[in-house]
Structure formats: C-alpha cells, structure tokens
C-alpha cells in the first residue's frame, strides 16, 4: 500500500530548497556572523535527511549519486591539506591567512584560507551525518 503523501512531497520540495539555500548562507556567513562549517554542514545534512525521509532512498540516490562516506573522507582531506599548505610557505601547520581582493562583481572581498578549511569541516559533517542516517534507515 502506498500512502498518499502529496502534501508532504510538495512541501518538502520547497522546504528542502529553502533549507539548502539557508545552509549555504549560514556557511558563508560564518566568518562574520553566526554560522560556519559545523552549522552549515549540519543543516545541509538535515535537509538531505528530510529528502530521504519523504521520498524513498532509491529515488534520492538516483538523483544524487554521491557516496557520503567519501564526502566525509574528502572533507577531512581538504582540512588536512589546507592545513598542510601553510607548510609550503614556511609557516606552522594549520596557519591560516587572509587578504582583501577586488573582485569584478563582489567589489572589495575578503578571501581567507580559513573558509577552505571550513569547507572541509562542512563536507565532513555532511558526509558523516548522512552516512549515519542512511545506514540505519537502510537496515530493516
């Protein structure tokens, strides 16, 4: 028996879109406002979990063919490599740098290696959270 969940489906489609947009905002705002890698990653994960709960796992997997274990590992690797990159400039491990640049559209923008590190954090969090939820829900 297939339950009639048209409302859930429709709402989720919109909600996930909003959640993901907001997560990205949270993530990039993290440098100056509340937010950052952990929060951004977790809210992306929660959006994805909502998708998995609403639609069945197979459907979502067909549309997002990503192995989230690898995402987690990739995140950790990014974090380590951004940390190690400072060694190339003869700075201690995990030394972060930042600077201000004039970009065409954004105007004067601050670019910091810390954001790259944060990308690693966010990916690790997303990967782990989704892996955990998926593994449990797949096991019947």
């Amino acid at each position, binding site marked *: 028996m297939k339950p009639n969940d048209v409302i859930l489906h429709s709402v989720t489609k919109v909600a996930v879109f909003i959640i993901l947009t907001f997560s990205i905002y949270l993530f990039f705002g993290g440098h100056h*406002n*509340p937010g950052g890698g*952990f929060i951004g990653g977790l809210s992306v994960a929660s959006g994805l979990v909502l998708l998995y709960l609403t639609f069945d796992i197979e459907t979502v997997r067909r549309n997002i063919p990503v192995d989230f274990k690898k995402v987690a590992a990739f995140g950790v690797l990014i974090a380590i490599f951004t940390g190690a990159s400072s060694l190339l400039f003869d700075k201690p491990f995990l030394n972060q740098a930042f600077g201000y640049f004039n970009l065409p559209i954004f105007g004067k923008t601050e670019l910091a290696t810390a954001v790259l590190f944060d990308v690693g954090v966010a990916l690790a969090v997303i990967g782990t*959270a989704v892996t*955990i939820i998926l*593994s449990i829900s797949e096991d019947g």
Partner: protein
Amino acid sequence: METSMSILIGVLFTIGTYLILTKSLLRIILGTSIISHGVNLLILTMGGLKTGGPPLLGQHDTTFTDSLPQALILTAIVINFAVTALFLVLSYRTYKTLGTDNMDKLRGMEDE
C-alpha cells in the same frame, strides 16, 4: 541566574546518572544524552553568564561573553551527536544480534 543554573545542572546530572545506572540500554542512551546537555550548560555557566554581548565583532557591543567556552561547546555538541549515533547503533545491533537490551543479561561469561 548562575545559582539556579547550577542547581539545574545538578538535577540534570542526577537524572542522567540514574538513567545510566539502570539496566535498560535505551535508558542508558537517554541518560548520556541528558548528561551531555548538563555538561554543555556547565561549561557555559562556568564561563560566566550574560557578561556582555554575543561574540560577534560586527555588532554594537563593546564587551562580549566569554567566547572560549562557546567554541568548546560547539565542538562538544557535534561530537556528542556522533557519539549518540554510535551508541544508538551499537545498542540496536546488540539487540538484533543477542535479542535483549537488558544489561544484566549482557554480562560476560562466567569462565572468562
């Protein structure tokens, strides 16, 4: 505020500990969850409450609450999530494999 928070933390710890000492796996997990909330609040309270604005430099505040405990707690929350998940899955697996969630029955063999 600090005093009432301290008492609240104490109550959370008491309930959490009591749940951890019971025989049911579920209650133990719930207990660890409650204790972790207690710990987070404890760290925050120890740093001093409401001593200034939120630790954001863009705002108009000139004094800030202690930012270090917050950073500690942020990591603690995330780690706690992972640990809770691991706990849950461990107990779930235990139940599936051994067919019980009673700690009394899960003890090791006599001859070990």
